[in-house]
């Protein structure tokens, strides 16, 4: 059978449910994932010879993880699955791939990007010291390597992941120095009506906090980070913050895990030339996408955290919806009632998402207050002062121009980790609204690409 060629990028909750929906419609999709195994970030599968149980690995989400893994295993011989494969560029109708030093292309009629998200980071003075991790990285170390990022870890930032990862570390027996949340309790109270859209998820979140409190972990809200202390030779040795009452407090630790909720991985969408829109509430740019998963580019669909941060359940729905949209646009029959039901559920997820944004606000003010000698771009070692100088003396009030002059965002991560904070620094220094600063244009390759890569002849 020669059906339409559909390529799915990502095997997290969105990608797996998307592939499943396509297979159910009689399609054999090409499924790509950079990782060696399916499951994505949240349901990351451990390497083949690791044997920790689902309850240990995924806690309250064990049943969902198990269901998703089983669903994927059932699909394996009905999809063209390419693990360990990086999608490094997109051109019209073709995805450019790389695996084990060989490059090849996957032509498509529909491309469904389910590329997930990474931590959204706000620089803090001293965050370049060895021992500073993102929350996501700390979680990966635990899930796929069964190890902690330090002997005594402090969790800093804001967002649901802050408490989740801290609780997972606690459960795994790690010593936790403190959990330091920049959001104030009043933010969470104000967000309660929206958060009640998903009472079960809210209850889970509260249970992590309760477990940490029972274990005697210091939990602070409304903190202002001052500095991660340490030195280049020995790495992190502590963290200093101002608490809600304005007092300076220091916590000893040899590792810091930090993050401020998430930012979508949008490079493929960008390379596919999808339009973006500024979300004033979240203070970040998202690709323009309908609840059904249609991007602004014909034939390109976006689902899961890579489009809009709705969490794992929302991602599963979004993956199904994007598949159904692609099928419908290719002229194949789809069940309208099912689409309507999924859309209703997504409405609830969207309400909850906005609750999270309210409960754990991105601390934009920190970028404005960042000391001149604090590093903004860790790849290129550029300080806030150097970035501000390019704004004030060289007239760089736009993100790509500030990058060109200062090199912030020009390193290995291509601004994926410093881009948003850098834009805040620029907006404040130039006294213009963040939206006006714009966003860094995505450029291939999506991740560093070996020059040794050779083109595979098919």
């Amino acid at each position, binding site marked *: 059978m020669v059906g339409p060629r559909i390529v799915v990028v990502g095997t997290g909750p969105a990608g797996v449910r998307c592939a499943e929906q396509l297979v159910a419609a009689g399609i054999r999709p090409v499924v790509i994932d950079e990782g060696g195994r399916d499951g994505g970030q949240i349901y990351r599968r451990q390497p083949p010879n690791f044997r920790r149980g689902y309850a240990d690995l995924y806690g309250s989400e064990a049943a969902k993880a198990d269901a998703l893994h089983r669903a994927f295993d059932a699909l394996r011989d009905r999809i063209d699955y390419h693990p360990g494969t990086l999608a490094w560029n997109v051109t019209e109708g073709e995805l450019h791939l790389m695996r084990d030093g060989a490059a090849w292309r996957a032509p498509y009629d529909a491309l469904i990007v389910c590329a997930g998200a990474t931590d959204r980071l706000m620089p803090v003075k001293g965050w370049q010291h060895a021992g500073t991790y993102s929350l996501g990285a700390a979680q990966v170390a635990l899930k796929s390597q069964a190890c902690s990022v330090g002997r005594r870890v402090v969790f800093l930032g804001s967002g649901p992941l802050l408490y989740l990862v801290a609780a997972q570390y606690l459960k795994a027996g790690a010593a936790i120095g403190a959990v330091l949340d920049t959001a104030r309790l009043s933010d969470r109270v104000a967000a309660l009506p929206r958060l009640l859209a998903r009472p079960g998820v809210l209850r889970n979140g509260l249970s992590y906090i309760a477990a940490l409190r029972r274990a005697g972990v210091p939990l602070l809200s409304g903190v202002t980070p001052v500095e991660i202390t340490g030195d280049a030779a020995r790495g992190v040795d502590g963290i200093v913050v101002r608490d809600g009452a304005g007092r300076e407090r220091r916590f000893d630790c040899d590792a810091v895990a930090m993050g401020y909720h998430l930012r979508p991985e949008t490079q493929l969408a960008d390379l596919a030339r999808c339009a973006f829109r500024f979300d004033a509430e979240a203070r970040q740019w998202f690709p323009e996408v309908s609840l059904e998963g249609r991007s602004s580019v014909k034939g390109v669909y976006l689902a899961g955290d890579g489009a809009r941060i709705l969490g794992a359940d929302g991602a599963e729905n979004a993956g199904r919806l994007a598949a159904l949209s692609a099928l419908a646009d290719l002229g194949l029959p789809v069940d309208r009632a099912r689409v309507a039901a999924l859309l209703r559920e997504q409405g609830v997820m969207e309400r909850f998402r906005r609750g999270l944004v309210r409960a754990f606000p991105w601390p934009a003010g920190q970028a404005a207050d960042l000391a001149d000698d604090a590093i903004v771009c860790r790849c290129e070692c550029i300080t806030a002062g150097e970035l501000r100088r390019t704004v004030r003396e060289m007239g760089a009030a736009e993100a790509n121009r500030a990058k060109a002059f200062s090199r912030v965002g020009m390193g*290995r991560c291509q601004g994926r980790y410093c881009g948003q904070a850098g834009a805040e620094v620029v907006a404040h220094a130039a006294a213009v609204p963040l939206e006006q600063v714009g966003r860094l244009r995505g450029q291939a*390759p999506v991740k560093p690409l070996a020059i040794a890569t050779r083109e595979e002849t098919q």
Partner: protein
Amino acid sequence: MSAHTSDVLIVGGGLMGTSTAFFLRRRGMSVTLLERGLVGQQASGTNFGNVRRQARYLLQLPLANRSLGIWQRLPELIGEDLEFLPSGHIRVAYTQDQAGVLEQYARDARDYGLELELIGGAALRARYPFLGPEVRAASLSPHDGHANPRLAAPAFGRAAIRAGAHIAENTEVLEVARDGTAFRASCADGRVYRAPVALIASGAWGDRMSAAFGEPVPLTARGPQMAVTEPVPYRIGPTVGVASQLLQETIYFRQIKRGNIIFGGCGRGPAYPDLRRAYVLPEHTLTQFDQLKRLAPAVARLNIIRVWSGIEGYMDDNLPVMGASRAVSGLYYAFGFSGHGFQLGPGVGDVMAELIATGNTSTPIAPFDIGRFAAASKELPARATTGTQSPAGSAAVPCQQR
């Protein structure tokens, strides 16, 4: 004079426009420069950064020499060095034929003030141990080098502003027309600027304006393609390029002090002037990988972190359009630099300012006269025929070698 009137009006804030604005101010003329986007965003900000004289069309060497003189005096002139690194430029040959081309060019270039050193055999390996085994010969231009294109035009723009020029960014010129004795530039936002002299320095977009003045030219917009590696310790020294008749062999690279290696060549992608975008073709990146493995196997052990392209205007004969209009008095052109304008930029600004201020240039630019495209039947003589060298002659491969 009102804010919207000046002695000279420049359309286009690339390196050509901004450097001309700077040098015009030094000659005491008031100048307004109009740029559709931000200064230096197009070819001038996206190029490879080669500050190379060798392999140029011989009759362009006087201009290139003058430009190099300015590159060497930059900090003193504009207060910034643009990361100009005079670390030399080598052209290498894989074949005996190409080695012969390098030798011939070295002989010819000497008459134009460019001394090249030919290197082969063991000396070549000893001096440039990173070159691959296929490289047989090299020609070194010791005073050439490379610079940071992202900084260049904006720095000239700031220097021009400090010297009193008026630069309006985000100002798209829809039309330039002769209005009595003055030129009138009408902008998309409704503003109108006037001056008795106008310079079209709008890069790959220059042909439309020259055509509107009755001087159409054969310009094609293309996007040369670049890539940059992750940083490694600084080792390489000179800019390196391959001399070849085969476009796909023409890889070139340079290493910046920070350690990253930048490379380009092997082909150009399509460019979309209306969208103001040139997209990268992934297949070109892979071709560049193959050629880099030949040229410098050690470099080929690295990863690239970014690729990009930019819109450049190429003339049919690969030479720029530079000089006074043949049709309209007071009108000047400096566009279509055909992939080799970065090195020339400061010199072009200096020469155009001289031409506008004095009516003459001390550096010959006749081969770049727009009149060369006038149909043979027209009464205007084509001044481009003053030289003996054909631009397409074997010594000149200006389009392929940055």
